[in-house]
C-alpha cells in the first residue's frame, strides 16, 4: 500500500515534479514559441516573450517551400516499418534468450548492446558502399533495414526483460497441452507480454522518427524523412531560427501527439518489472 504523504510534503513533491517537467519541456516550448515570432523577434536580446511580433508567416513559408506530406509519409513508413520488422526478428530472439537460455546468452546480450556504443560515423563509408552496390541509396526499404538493425539491441533487451517476468510454467503448461512453438509464442506469450511489446513498439517508433544521421546520409529526395526536412532549414548565413523552429515543430508534432495519447502505456511499459 502506498505510504500516505502529509499535505505539505505532497505540495513539495508536486512542485518539484512540475519544476523538473517544465525544465525538460522548456526547450520544446521555446521552440514552439519561436516558430510564431518574426526572425528579428526570434533573435532579439533580451529574449522577447510578451512584446514579440507574433506571426504565422514561418509556417506558411515552410509549407510553401517544402513538400511536407512527402517527408511526413516517409517518416511514417520508415519509423513504423523498421519497428515492425524489428519486432518480427526480436520476439523469437528474446523468447529464446528468456526461456531457453544458453551458457552464452548473457554475453550475447551484452555484445548486442555494445554495438550501440560504436559511433555511427565509423561505419558510414562501408555501409554507403553496400547500399550503393545493392541499389538501396535513397530508398525507404534501405532505411527500414538500417534503422531496424540500429534499434534491434534495444528491442531485444526490452522484450527480454518483459519476457523474463512471465512465469515459464505457463508456457510449459501450454506445451503440455500440445501447443506448437508457433502457437506458444503467438497465442500464449505475445498476449501476456502485450503491454511490454506495445511500449517497446512506441519507444522504437519515437527513436526511429528522431533518427537524424542515417536518414540524412543515406537519402536525397525520394526517401528523405522529416529529419532531412528540418536540416534543410538551417542556414550558414542569415537569420533562420524562426523558420527552423516552425519546421521542427511541424516535424515533432505527430510524434508529440502519439506520445501524449500513449503516455500511460509508455510509462507502464518502461517501469514494468522495475520493482520486484
Amino acid at each position: 500500500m502506498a505510504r500516505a504523504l502529509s499535505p505539505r510534503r505532497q505540495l513539495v513533491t508536486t512542485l518539484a515534479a512540475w519544476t523538473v517537467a517544465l525544465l525538460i519541456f522548456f526547450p520544446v516550448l521555446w521552440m514552439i514559441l519561436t516558430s510564431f515570432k518574426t526572425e528579428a523577434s526570434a533573435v532579439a536580446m533580451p529574449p522577447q516573450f510578451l512584446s514579440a511580433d507574433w506571426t504565422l508567416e514561418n509556417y506558411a513559408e515552410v509549407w510553401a517551400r517544402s513538400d511536407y506530406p512527402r517527408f511526413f509519409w516517409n517518416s511514417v513508413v520508415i519509423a513504423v516499418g523498421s519497428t515492425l520488422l524489428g519486432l518480427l526478428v526480436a520476439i523469437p530472439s528474446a523468447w529464446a534468450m528468456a526461456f531457453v537460455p544458453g551458457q552464452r546468452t548473457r554475453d550475447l546480450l551484452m555484445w548486442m548492446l555494445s554495438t550501440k556504443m560504436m559511433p555511427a560515423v565509423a561505419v558510414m563509408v562501408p555501409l554507403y558502399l553496400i547500399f550503393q552496390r545493392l541499389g538501396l541509396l535513397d530508398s525507404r526499404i534501405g532505411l527500414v533495414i538500417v534503422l531496424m538493425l540500429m534499434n534491434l539491441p534495444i528491442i531485444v533487451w526490452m522484450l527480454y526483460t518483459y519476457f523474463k517476468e512471465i512465469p515459464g510454467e505457463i508456457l510449459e503448461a501450454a506445451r503440455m497441452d500440445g501447443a506448437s512453438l508457433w502457437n506458444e509464442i503467438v497465442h500464449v506469450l505475445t498476449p501476456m507480454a502485450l503491454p511490454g511489446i506495445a511500449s517497446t513498439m512506441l519507444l522504437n517508433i519515437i527513436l526511429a522518427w528522431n533518427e537524424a544521421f542515417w536518414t540524412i546520409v543515406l537519402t536525397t529526395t525520394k526517401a528523405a524523412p522529416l529529419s532531412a526536412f528540418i536540416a534543410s532549414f538551417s542556414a550558414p548565413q542569415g537569420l533562420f531560427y524562426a523558420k527552423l523552429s516552425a519546421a521542427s515543430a511541424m516535424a515533432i508534432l505527430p510524434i508529440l501527439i502519439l506520445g501524449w495519447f500513449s503516455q500511460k502505456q509508455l510509462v507502464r511499459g518502461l517501469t514494468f518489472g522495475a520493482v520486484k
Partner: protein
Amino acid sequence: MTISLGALLGATASLALSGAAMAQTTITVATVNNGDMVRMQGLMDDFNAKHPDIKVEWVTLEENVLRQNVTTDIATGGGQYDVITIGTYEVPIWGKQGWLESLNDLPADYDVDDLLPAIRGGLTVDGTLYASPFYGESSMVMYRTDLMEAAGMTMPEAPTWADIEKAAAAMTNKDAGIYGVCLRGKAGWGENTAFITAMSNSFGARWFDENWVPQFDQPEWKATIDFYLNLMNNYGPPGASNNGFNENLTLFQQGKCGMWIDATVAASFVTNPKDSTVADKVGFALAPDNGLGKRGNWLWAWSLAIPASSDAKDAAKTFINWATNKDYLALVASKEGWANVPPGTRTSLYENPEYQKVPFAKMTLESINSADPNNPTVKPVPYVGVQFVAIPEFQGIGTTVGEIFSAALAGQKTADQALAEAQAVVTEEMKASGYIQ
C-alpha cells in the same frame, strides 16, 4: 473479341512514340539554404518552361552536412547528385582529384570571359573550369554612420587596422550596450579561422612557408593575434568567443556593434529594414590593411559543379548554364529587383547602371577584386586560398587552430600559448601527412 495485328502494332508504336516525347531526365541538385538559392528554387518555372525534358529535384542541407554527404557520395562514386553546391575551398582539391566534370564546354552564351577574374581563378585548376559561380563574396567593413558621426570621425574608404582601432575606441559605449567592433570568435575553419587567416594576410603572416613549414612561431602571427585579442578584449562584445556570422549579424542588426568586418553578403541583411534596426545607418569600407600590400578580406564563391559520378551530365550542364548565366541575373532583377541579384560573379553586372545604384555594389566588387587566391599573402606560399589553405587536411587543422584561438579570446590562454600550441599541432599534422619530415 478480336483485335487486328495492324491495330495492335499501331497502338504500340504510338505509345512508344508518346513515351519518347515525354521522356524526362531527372537531375538531383544538392544545395545550401541561403536567400539566393531559395530564390532560385522559386524561379524554376522559367527553367521548366525552357527545358521541359529536364526535371530538377532539390536536396537542401546545412553547409557542413552537405559537405559530408557530397564528399561521401563522390568518394564512393555513389552518383546520388548531378549538381552540387561547393565553395572555393573544395574546387581546387576535388578538381585535382578528378572528382568533378570539366565545365570548359559550356555553350557560348555562358560567356566565361564575363566571370570576375578573381572568382574564375579560384574555380579553375590547370586551365579547366570545374565549377560555375552562383554568387561570390568577399569581406568588408560595415559600420554605423550615426555613431561615427557622433564621435566626430569619418571612416576612410580603405581603412588601416589602426583606423579600425581608433574608431572602435570612439564608438564603444558599454553602458549603452554598444561595442565598437564585432568580429568572429566562434571556433571553426569556416568561422574564426577564416576571419583570422584573412586578417593575418594583411599583417604579412602566412600559414606555411614555401616548404610547407608552419609559421605560427613568426612575429607576423604574433602581431596578428595580439592585435585581434586586444581589439576584441577592449572593444568587443562579451562572450565574443561564441560569436560566428549569425550571432554577429544579430548583434549588428540590433544596434549593438559599431563595426562588423565580415562577408559582403551581409550587406543586404543589415540594410534590410524588415530585420535590421539600423538599416538606414550603415556605411561600407574595404577590409583594413597595414600598408603591406594585402588587405584583410577573403574570397568565397558558392558554385555549382557536376560530380564525375553523375549519369546525367548533359542535363546538369544545361541546368548550370541556366542558373549561372547572365540571363538568370536579368530574370531575378525583373522579378525581385536588382538588389536581390546574386552578387559577385560577373563583370557585366557591375557595369550595369541599374546595379550600380545598389548601395553595396561598388564596395563588393572592389573587395572581390582585391583578393587573389593564387597569391594571397605578402610572402610567397605554396598554397591556393585567401582565408583557407586548399589542402584536404585544412578542415581538420583549421578547426583545431580555430579552437585554440577561440580559447585565447575566452581568456583561457595567452596569445603566446595559443600560437605555440597552434605551431605544435599544425607541425604534427603536416609531418603525419608527409608534407614535411
